[in-house]
């Protein structure tokens, strides 16, 4: 067959197949780009006498975002999210490692067992923690019955509970990418490390960890992004000093009826998260290049 003819057909074919992008592009355009643009436009607006958002051209909402009152909220959200990422990594790595290396034929059953609880709505799962950890909840009642404590221990309405809720809510996003990259790793490189008289610890640091770095990076980003904007955990498990930026934004859209300020907060959050995302994408592509 004439190779040129073949190439021509391929080109025509690819033009034809290009049309299949249209539904997806339309979807993204209408349901992602347009709303995003409206949020951006509204963030320069103000509120009318009925409390409705009105589009406009003013910076006042952005000035308010960086008002000294709200900076602690932003800092708190990022801190909680970072602690969540670290805890998810510390808990998730051994779990993923165990399943990937030693799960054998039960690997998929174990992964399914981890994933299935996440089919239940996040809000409902968080309410379950309220019932478990309340002062007269199940856990405190057991502790008192077993005489481990006299008075109930305050577990909910604390920063620990909020971070616990975030870890519980998002740990699956850490375990799955870690599992993927540990499973893909060639076990013989670990044996090679040991053959070269590396202790288990040194082998882990110098062989396993670098080999699974893409999974670690993906897991960290996937946990950090939703955790920093979360409002459910702080609302249900938090106390008076655990207000996160997600709560702030939610309150602006409902209780306080200030959509323009809520939009400005959203835009600032998105820009901040986009920086992380770009950092991650650059690292990830470089990582792939290294492998190749």
């Amino acid at each position: 067959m004439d190779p040129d003819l073949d190439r021509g057909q391929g080109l025509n074919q690819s033009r034809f197949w290009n049309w299949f992008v249209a539904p997806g592009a339309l979807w993204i355009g209408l349901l992602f780009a347009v709303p995003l643009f409206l949020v951006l436009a509204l963030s320069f607006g103000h509120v009318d006498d009925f409390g409705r958002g009105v589009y406009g051209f003013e910076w006042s909402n952005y000035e308010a975002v960086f008002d000294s009152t709200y900076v602690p909220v932003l800092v708190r959200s990022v801190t909680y999210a970072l602690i969540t990422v670290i805890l998810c990594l510390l808990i998730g790595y051994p779990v993923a490692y165990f399943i990937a290396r030693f799960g054998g034929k039960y690997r998929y059953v174990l992964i399914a067992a981890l994933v299935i609880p996440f089919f239940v709505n996040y809000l409902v799962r968080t309410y379950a923690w309220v019932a478990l950890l309340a002062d007269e909840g199940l856990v405190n009642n057991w502790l008192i019955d077993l005489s481990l404590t006299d008075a109930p221990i305050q577990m909910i309405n604390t920063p620990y509970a909020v971070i616990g809720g975030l870890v519980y809510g998002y740990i699956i996003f850490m375990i799955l990418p870690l599992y993927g990259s540990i499973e893909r790793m060639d076990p013989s490189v670990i044996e090679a490390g040991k053959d070269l008289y590396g202790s288990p610890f040194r082998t882990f640091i110098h062989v396993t960890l670098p080999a699974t770095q893409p999974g670690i990076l993906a897991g960290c980003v996937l946990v950090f992004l939703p955790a920093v904007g979360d409002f459910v955990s702080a609302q249900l498990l938090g106390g008076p000093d655990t207000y996160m930026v997600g709560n702030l934004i939610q309150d602006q859209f409902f209780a306080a009826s200030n959509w323009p300020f809520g939009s400005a907060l959203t835009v600032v959050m998105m820009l901040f998260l986009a920086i992380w995302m770009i950092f991650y994408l650059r690292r990830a592509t470089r990582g792939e290049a290294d492998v190749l």
Partner: protein
Amino acid sequence: MSDLELNRRQLLAAGAGLALTAYGVSGCTVERPLDRSAAGDIVEPKIDGDLLIYNWAQYMDPQIQKDFAEEHGIRVTEVNFDNLEAMVTKLRAGGAYDLIFPSSEYVKRLKNEQLIRQFDRSKLPNAATLSPFYDNPWYDPDSEFSLPYAYYTTGIAYRTDQGLTMTESWNDLSNPDAEGRIFMLDDFQEGIGQANLINGFYLNTARTEELEVSKETLLMQKEGLRGFSTNSVQTLVSGSAAITQAWNGDVVNARNQVDDPSIFAYETCKEGVPVGTDAMSIPITAKSPGTALMFMDYLLKPSNAYRNVMWNGYPQPVAGGREAFAKLVKDDPSIDVNLEEIADSSMEFRLEDPEARQEWTRIWTEVKA
């Protein structure tokens, strides 16, 4: 280079296009304008379709809805909101609910915004036994756009089994006996309102210097709080709250959920008792306004008011509802509501000036942050 990649000129053009669009929409409100053509028509009480109710959760005995549905051969569906601002947002966006339950202040706002419909209450036989105060309430002169559903006071609920010294004052929200186990309602008006009362200001004050003082009071109270929550039943029953700012009906509900109801008591405060009314209205977007009006009358029927109050714990200002509530609170008169207090509208939340409203929400956000 592929066709899809943008060059700099195209990018600039796109940017200019976006800027132009932004300029075009500048000054527009977020929502599209609603069809308000029905605003002038008076709703007639007749069955004209299935009923979609939009209400607070756990605020109406579902059996009443089932009975009404059966009686008229229609379907009745209830969906819930958890704050009024969210409810208004949905209405403005065109949500086709048939019956809503705004507070008195919101009735006035919705009426001003032409979001609710007018009806003739004389055509509703069961409205005749409503308390006379509601013939001509401040928020809806001649009661043409709303009928009262329930009324309530705001006070403080507390545990009687923890040796707390209570003082019948809003200062109990910073009671040292219960430090770290106190909740405040997550509601900007209730929160700032009680601080205003502590400081001896008018409940709905719009004076900036007074609001600043109340903000300091709130920040001081926040130190001893365990959280902000409107779910008082849950914080009380789960044992997390020793003291919580609460609506009186929720105390009745909390008592119903424990073995020994006497562990929860309710006090009203000497600095002032905020009172409120939740009303029923028919949105402009209603598909079955006639059915909604029929159902409003059905809710006011003495036998229905009686079982509804026994179910939700909030008094209704109508024959049957009053008797049921008196029965519920016969051991604890503090939970009862004096309708004269409602007539004194200085103890009702009403922020009619939009700037004052924004000032209040800003202060509340700063307190919570």
